[in-house]
């Protein structure tokens, strides 16, 4: 018995060195070669960090593309979804109110034009993307607010729409932060 206790403790110590020091530090060193040096890829504007490429931000103003609703207000110190069940009456009331808001800011839209991702909260609360459809339906509003030709904004949306992996795997998506930054550059 005593023999096995000592073996267990010694083996655990050896494995702690291998698995908790050698392995993670080697990966951390290799990560220095990646975009963002293993600390997350940052996005700069005029030399200042304005965000992380992978983390969504809140864009409440009508001249920007609106991202998805977030249960945590895009506060990246934490993360999480609404965890509301599909039949919860309070939840359905919230969705209904969000649809009304979208319709108010985009009066030309019909309900069937609104894709679900624009009125439902993401799982992480930090979803950086919206669907292609969610971007397209906002073009008209943004063009009106910014007094820019709709076609120019539509071109931008096409440019910032990420294709599926290898062209065939997974959904299309649009990174909202990158699109909005490009929008500000547009003359």
């Amino acid at each position, binding site marked *: 018995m005593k023999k096995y206790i000592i073996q267990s403790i010694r083996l655990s110590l050896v494995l702690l060195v291998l698995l908790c020091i050698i392995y993670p530090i080697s990966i951390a060193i290799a990560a220095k070669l990646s975009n963002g040096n293993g600390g997350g890829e940052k996005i700069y504007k005029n030399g200042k960090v304005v965000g992380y490429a992978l983390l969504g931000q809140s864009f409440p103003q009508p001249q920007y593309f609106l991202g998805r609703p977030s249960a945590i207000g895009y506060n990246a110190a*934490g993360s999480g979804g609404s965890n509301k069940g599909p039949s919860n009456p309070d939840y359905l009331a919230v969705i209904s109110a969000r649809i009304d808001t979208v319709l108010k800011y985009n009066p030309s839209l019909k309900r069937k034009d609104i894709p679900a991702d624009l009125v439902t909260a993401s799982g992480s609360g930090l979803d950086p993307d919206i669907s292609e459809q969610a971007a397209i339906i906002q073009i008209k509003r943004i063009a009106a607010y910014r007094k820019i030709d709709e076609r120019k904004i539509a071109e931008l949306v096409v440019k910032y729409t990420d294709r599926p992996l290898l062209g065939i795997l997974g959904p299309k998506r649009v990174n909202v932060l990158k699109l909005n930054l490009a929008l500000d550059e547009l003359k």
Partner: protein
Amino acid sequence: MNTEFIGIIATFFITVAIAIPLGKYLAKVFAGEKVWTDFLKPIETLIYKLSGINVKEQMDWKKHLKVLLLINSIWIIYGFFILLYQDKLPFNPDGNPGMPADLAFNTIISFVANCNLQHYSGETGVSYLTQQFVLMFLQFVSAATGIAAAIVLFKAFREKTATNLGNFWEFFVRSITRLLLPLSVVVALILTFNGTPASYEGKDQFISLQGDTINVSRGPAAQMIAIKHLGTNGGGYFGANSSHPFENPNYLTNMVEMIAQTIIPMAMVICFGYFIRRKKLGYTIFGVMTIGMLLLMIPTLHSELGGNPQLAKMGIAQHTGAMEGKEVRFGPAATAYWSTLTTVISTGSVNGMHDSTMPLTGLWQLLGMMVNGFYGGCGVGILNYFIYLIIAVFISGLMVGRTPEFLGHKVEAREVKIASIITLLSPFLILAGTAISTYVFTAHGDVAWSTEPKAWLNNPSFHGFSEMLYEVTSSNANNGSGFEGLSDNNAFWNVLTGIIIFLGRFLPIIGPVAIAGLLAKKKFIPESAGTLKTDTKTFALMTFAVIMVLNALSYFPALALGPIAEYFTMLK
């Protein structure tokens, strides 16, 4: 065909294409035959030397279990104290507090047991020291424990009659050096080059385009996310698990994480067949498991891709499916695929919030965890399935009026008794646990605890019941996913689920290993015309029927009160 479908079909076939050769490789590794990774032998020899281990020492099944339980208890004690005092220990750049005793109890049991139910949130609840030296460490060693236990069982059926079943330390160390660690390096590198943080920097702060000051939690995440999937642990670095853009940056990493969590459980089944020199049996079991998994996955896809009927009534478009709690970069198809995998296998990581999935999706998730043997967790999946096999052998034996035999050994009263106890354990823990919690919720809702029981649930009515049922089921299955709306970080849930996880982990390891050990000692009976063949389609169907009947009888009433009732009320 749409790209979301092609994505999941491709993922499935890549997974199988990796798992089958991996299974053959594992059979060779554990049989001590020549393999291309033998260049790692010096590292293993060094580990044995530093630990004072003689791998030539042969152990019988009792000694295997003794050593297994011993080293697991040492990890429980070690981790418990680090969790309690992490605020006073180094590597805590975000200044997170020490855990209260009940939370530390729950967390340590949960990680030792390969469950990874998390009642804390990674960003605010643990230090970097805890993340790496306790949680990630346990993700490696708990997976290796499961694999080593399965190999002990395999060993029992390799030779005709055997008392000595190899050396536990050797199986355990090889699981790490030949399987978990090398694959973790590969997966961690893929993740970090796609944007997952891997460095030791603390929180970052920046001013957003809108002028808000935003803090960003970071840290050495890629290393942990690799092993959390390969080891079917599921405990994420960040609170939102693999739906967090840092844990799972894009569709490629999503595929990699889905493949990573499936290959070892699949490979273990193939390994079983090759290791005991009955590869047809391995493929037969693999077939039953795959059919079972698909029978859960196809209706899941159907219910998620159809969208939320209540939102459809509001007139909006759900072209791709239900989106609440899901991420745009994965889409509903890949999220539904993941939700089935993570529940049939005991991973429990999520790339979308299960609490917000459709009622019938919740039903299939719960059923996947209740069966807990369609692939199942690292090593323990095949152990769970072994119990179903023994029950199926026994019932078939009764049906044809012969003494039941399994792989040339008579299955007698003692073995069947053990199998029955293990079979009854899951319904007992799940139903009793749910009963206790619903009782406290309804009869003592106002008790002055830190969280009043009546405030536990995030959703009313049947869905609220499902939240409690899910929590208990996930604990018993050592799954670790949750209907996260439940307020589970309080003494009641921490203690209840801690106990269930512990029993749900170790008894289903002890039972199958004991049965295998007892069978292996018995005289070998050569196959004759009257032998029940276990690698035929008929017997496969029999096992499948046993699984269906046992689980349907045990859980249908509880499921009817939760997801099924919610489904029918939503149709109105």
